[in-house]
Structures are given as C-alpha cells and as structure tokens.
C-alpha cells in the first residue's frame, strides 16, 4: 500500500474519535492526533486496536508510542505491513 492509500484509510479509523470533521478531511503527515484532531488521549488505544484489526498487524509498545501524528501512524503501519 502507498502512504496516500494508508492516509485515506486512516480517516475512517480516526473518524469515530474526532468531532473535527473538517480537519479530518484535510489531514497530512504533520496532523497531530491530540492537538489538531482533538482526539482524547483515552481513545489512542482504540485507534491502535482498530489499526491492528484493519491491517491485521500487531503494534508493539514502542511502535504505539510513536503514533502521535498522522505521518508517524503511516510509518508504523507501513513498517508492520512490510514485515508481515
């Protein structure tokens, strides 16, 4: 999968946890999950679990810690897909 394809799919992963739909439509690598999308930190685990299920991957502690913006989420998912 390309980074653009993952970015597009991530919008549906983030959607249940943000009310900022306008920002969601225009996310890019720099978009911060908490600061920009206003996702509550308590939902970050939901996003990791949802990403694991969507891509059939396992996201370990260290990788999960990196998932603070859209670009780092794509990095982690891409890496896990490549090593699947």
């Amino acid at each position, binding site marked *: 999968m390309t980074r653009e394809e993952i970015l597009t799919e991530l919008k549906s992963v983030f959607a249940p946890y943000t*009310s900022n739909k306008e920002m969601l439509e225009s996310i890019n690598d720099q978009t911060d999950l908490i600061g920009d999308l206003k996702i509550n*930190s*308590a939902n970050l685990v939901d996003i990791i*679990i949802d990403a694991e299920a969507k891509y059939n991957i396992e996201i370990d502690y260290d990788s999960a810690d990196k998932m*603070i913006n859209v670009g780092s989420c794509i990095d982690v998912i891409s890496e896990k897909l490549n090593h699947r």
Partner: protein
Amino acid sequence: MTISTGNDIVALKAINIDRTRQPNFYSKIITDNEKSLYDEALFAVLPLEHFVWLAWSVKESVYKFLKRHQHDLIFSPSKIIVAHVTPPAKRSQAQREGIGFDGESAYKVEATFVGHKFHARTILSPDYIFSVVDNHSGFSKVHWGIKKIGSSEPQDQSAAVRELVLHKFRDLFPEDNFKIEKSLTGLPVLFKNGTETAIPVSFAHHDHYVAYSFVWA
C-alpha cells in the same frame, strides 16, 4: 524537589467496558506485571475495566507531571509502571474539590518512571475515575477540582476547565487578576496580574467531565 502537578479524569460512561476487558486492549495500557496487581483483594472492590482505567489515569497524570519539565517527553504507558494500588477504607463521596485527600476515601497508588517514584491519589466515583500525582505522599499543597459540563466538545471542555480553575484562584486571591495561557509545549500557564507565576497547573477532560490540579502552599 521538582515542583509540578498532573491529573487525569476518565468518564466511565465514555469507556467501552467490553473492549477494555479484552486482553488485546488492556495489554496496551498495563503490562503483565501490573496485571498481576489485580489480585483477589482488588477484584473484590474494583471491576477489571476500572482497574485498567485507574492505571491509565495514573500513568497519564505522571506523564503530565513530568512533561512540565521534560518538554520532549512522549507518553508511553508501558514505561510508567504502577507498582502498588491500595483501596480506600471507605467508598468515595461525591466530593468535587479539595486540598489534599481524605486518607480514607481515595485509592493510594505508587508508580515509577525510570527509577523515579510517584504517588497518586485516585477517586473512583460511579461516574468517573480521577487521579492526581505528586512526587511526595502528603498532597497537602495539592488543590484539585472536578466539574460535570453540558458538552463534550473540545472547545467547551477547554473553556470550562479554565473557568473552573480561574474561579478557584479568584476565591483564593480576590484582589488579583488571573488568566491562563498555553505554553509552546501545550501546558497551561497561570498569569497573576499579567505576570507568569510558578504555580503548576494541570488540566484534564473526558466526555462531560473536566478537572484541574495545582500546587500552592
């Protein structure tokens, strides 16, 4: 001694109980060693989902405490270790603000992060789990407050928690003017009569609840 504060609130109506009880979910928040703390004594007073979110709220509070002085710190639940959880002698009342904690109605929690020890007090009500962290066990200088609000929108939460803490400061110092601004790293900074203070303030919000803590003698 580092002067800081950190708090967190989890609205229990907003958590997914079934999901929280699944090992693939809670294992992202608590390690196997922390899971072993959930023994028969805790099981008797605390559902697993509450234990998991109690641990989360303590870890998030430790992170906020540290973030004030370590601006590049990344929140890493697996690296903040909950070491001890002691249930209160009695159920928490519906107390929504205080200075320090009644020794009998809050959970006492100890946590560590790279060798540093932290103390937490956690109130578990039917509606929320609220934790405050300090680096000593007295909590006598820790002011805290909780409020239920009518909206769960981020901008309303932000406005409500600021108004809540500013109301408290106006009570404490009626002659002075206060305002809250956000630091470059996103932390709340208290200004008194136009001058930045050294009073550490921490905000938390989840769903329809907002909370604050600050340290002032």
